[in-house]
């Protein structure tokens, strides 16, 4: 159990959060992603960040609808969300989902939603830089082979390549890059609403192709920063029956473990 205040609670108490944690649908409902949400909430609590979530007032940002071509549905979602966010006078948003991050940051302003939006890996990096996260008392990742998979909507879409890597650097782990990384990173296969449909016919699934890159690095941990990538990489590991050798972890989970928060 963690104490996570909602915006409604905060307002009722006459308080304002420093930052709103936008959990996202995967982070709210998907069992694996829920653990990432919890890890990140613990990091925020541990660092005494005054944050809140929307709780049941949160709604899909509309990202999958927009990428699938349903602009009506997207804008309906966007305008309703903006009404809620503006109603609470939200200024700053942090999210662990690059799809939510991209949509709120880039596509909401033109519909009336102007917020300072950051990805959770960026906030974690800031906390480390500020000395609020010491990388101590927890599980050591020292010397462990870790590779980071760039989410398309964080990397190519928004140019965030460094923050997640910097968070991993403090672990003193053995960081290895996949041959396709950063600008040339290969998609996990879930973006553009692919998460919600069967793939078109082809030689193989995209996450299986991506697993080849992972296996080549001989990494023990695949670090991800996106709940969709998490699902796809996890399935990829399972496909190759490597569950014993390779762990797929979100950067928030790695940080939380490293600081003995989970």
């Amino acid at each position: 159990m963690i104490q996570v205040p909602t915006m409604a609670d905060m307002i009722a108490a006459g308080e304002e959060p420093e930052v709103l944690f936008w959990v996202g649908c995967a982070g709210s409902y998907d069992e694996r992603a829920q653990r990432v949400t919890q890890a990140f909430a613990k990091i925020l609590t541990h660092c005494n960040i005054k944050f809140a979530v929307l709780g049941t007032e949160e709604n899909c940002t509309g990202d999958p609808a927009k990428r699938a071509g349903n602009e009506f549905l997207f804008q309906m979602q966007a305008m309703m969300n903006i009404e809620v966010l503006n109603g609470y006078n939200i200024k700053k948003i942090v999210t662990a989902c690059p799809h939510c991050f991209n949509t709120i940051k880039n596509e909401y302003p033109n519909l009336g939603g102007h917020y300072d939006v950051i990805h959770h890996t960026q906030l974690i990096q800031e906390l480390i830089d500020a000395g609020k996260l010491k990388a101590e008392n927890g599980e050591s990742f020292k010397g462990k082979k870790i590779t980071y998979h760039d989410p398309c909507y964080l990397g190519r879409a928004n140019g965030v390549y460094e923050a997640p890597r910097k968070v991993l650097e403090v672990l003193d782990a053995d960081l290895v890059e996949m041959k396709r990384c950063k600008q040339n990173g290969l998609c996990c296969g879930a973006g553009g609403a692919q998460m919600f449909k069967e793939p078109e016919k082809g030689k193989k699934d995209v996450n299986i192709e991506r697993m080849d890159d992972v296996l080549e690095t001989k990494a023990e941990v695949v670090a991800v920063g996106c709940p969709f990538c998490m699902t796809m990489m996890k399935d990829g590991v399972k496909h190759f029956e490597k569950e014993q050798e390779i762990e797929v972890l979100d950067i928030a989970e790695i940080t939380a473990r490293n600081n003995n928060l989970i």
Partner: protein
Amino acid sequence: MLAQIIFILALITAIIAFTISIKKIIRNINLGKDIDRTDHQPERWKNMLKVALGQSKMTARPVAGIMHILVYVGFIIINIEVLEIIIDGIFGTHRVFSFLGSFYNFLIASFEILALLVLLGVFVFLARRLVLQLKRFKGIEMTAWPKSDAIYILVIEVLLMSAFLTMNAADYKLQQAGVHHYTLAGSFPVSQFILPLLPTDINSLILIERFCWWFHILGILAFLNYLPFSKHFHIILAFPNTWYAKLAPKGEFNNMETVSHEVKAMLNPSYTPPAIDANNKFGAKDVQDLNWVQLMNAYTCTECGRCTSSCPANITGKLLSPRKIMMDTRDRMEEIGRNIDKHGKDYNDGKSLLDDYISREEIWACTTCNACVEACPVNIDPLSIILDLRRFAVMEESNVTGSLNAMFSNIENNGAPWKYSPADRFNWANKED
């Protein structure tokens, strides 16, 4: 005198023919919808200088990138020589810039070295296509014409550069022989090695020099007129294309204004949306529904295939190829252009970009990962076309797979793409981990 008249006529004909072709291309590009891309001009100029002039994205693949820069720099700089050839041709002079003295020698010497480097680059390119048979140059869209187009361009470049060097060699030999009209000028670090291959007879030498001179310049004029029909047109359009390219983050997809009005009206009954054009479609079915920048993108594409070779869908054997999206868009535009020429501007051939050129299977295989956009050396955006086609399929036709429809209705009814109850959204906080 006769030679001058022939030259001037050839030059005028070439320029007129080129202008006619360009006008057609501009007309075809203007089939697209209007879009304002004139904001942030300093950034646009910077992009053009960096990406088009500076070739900054080419070296992402070093071998092809460096060879391309050689051919590109050679091409641009050797054009100074073309200027001299044109002046000589009009006024019947010979090496009119030779008064520059030692600087002229330097110029000619550097042209020769560049010509050699261009030849090197072009031979590497030919080898990559004909001997190494790189996968990137294959694919369902690489049918007979795109393949031969590429080879024609390379062969023409070999011929033009060879003519230039042979011309210089013959000229040099005539200069050494002190033949009238062949003023002692220039420095020939490359073509001097061709000298032993040439005859010693003065008349033959003059014939070779003249033939190469005419072949070189007529070849250039012919090549100029080949451009608008070829993928090689990128040498011109790369510049406006990078200038007008999207500046927003790659992940930002445009919010459709027509939709905004309707959604506002739905959420707020007192909001009156402005009247919309009856012909307005949501999304794109044909090239006229795309904007002119997307259409210019299609004419700019040189079919290098960097997009396709980095596309996750294509890599894993799906039908989608971003290069094909661009080539199809261009082919369809050309088809409509020919229809306008033949049957007038209101002619409807009953075909469309979606289905007759690009299939549903292709557009739905896209993960919108932006790898194609990132890979394009001239900032073409195939993804925006894929999205507009999807928008048409969804919003005009409601023609999507059941699972996507389920996702839509989940979002609409539960506020999440999965079928979970909104009341359970906050349950994660009460779970033990």
